[in-house]
């Protein structure tokens, strides 16, 4: 047997459940999962890794679309898996598609922002896709498979 320097893979999954706290943190009102939401943004907006919080700036507007978007279904807890003795992945994917029903979004949009509405709308991730418009129709955004290589959110060590 030998020891191997590594970041513990369990830690990666636990980061997603706020198990560890190295600094000041918000006071959590409950031990249940936070509520996450998904808002759509115009192709002309500027969302990227620097985005820190949900904003209506650049968000789509239109018939039957509510500012802030839809609630993300979160029925599956984050998972962490070792890929070797020195590497692993913590990952999570929402458990249902995001569906915007019978909307009219006439201006092209190409981005969805996932954010934490429980924690002051703090941003989680920005995902882009080919530009779309919707006319009296439904926009469905289906999540990737919840695996170590394709999950919506992945924290990986190498």
């Amino acid at each position, binding site marked *: 047997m030998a020891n191997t320097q590594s970041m513990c893979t369990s830690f990666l999954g636990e980061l997603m459940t706020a198990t560890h706290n190295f600094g000041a943190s918000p006071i959590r009102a409950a031990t249940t999962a936070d509520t996450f939401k998904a808002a759509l943004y115009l192709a002309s907006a500027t969302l990227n890794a620097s985005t820190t919080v949900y904003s209506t700036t650049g968000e789509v507007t239109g018939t039957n679309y509510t500012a802030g978007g839809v609630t993300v279904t979160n029925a599956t807890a984050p998972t962490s898996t070792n890929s070797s003795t020195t590497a692993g992945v913590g990952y999570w994917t929402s458990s249902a598609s995001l569906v915007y029903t019978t909307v009219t979004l006439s201006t092209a949009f190409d981005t969805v922002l996932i954010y934490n509405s429980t924690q002051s709308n703090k941003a989680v991730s920005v995902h882009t*896709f080919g530009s779309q418009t919707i006319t*009296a*129709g439904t926009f*469905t955004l289906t999540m990737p498979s919840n695996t170590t290589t*394709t*999950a919506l959110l992945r924290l990986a060590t190498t």
Partner: protein
Amino acid sequence: MIVTTTKGEMDDSLLEKKEGSVDNDNESTTWVEYWLDGELVHRSAHVTLKKMPVLAGAETASF
């Protein structure tokens, strides 16, 4: 089939249907449009995300 349109619910037999798809490394997308006398009255789209950005390269300190 009844389709929701900008003119209300209509039977699709009265409409011209157009469909399309895109498939690349990032997404698989399909869309359907219904047109009435040259006017777009319905468009829906279904985007399936394939692969997301990953935070990679985290490492522990060496002593």
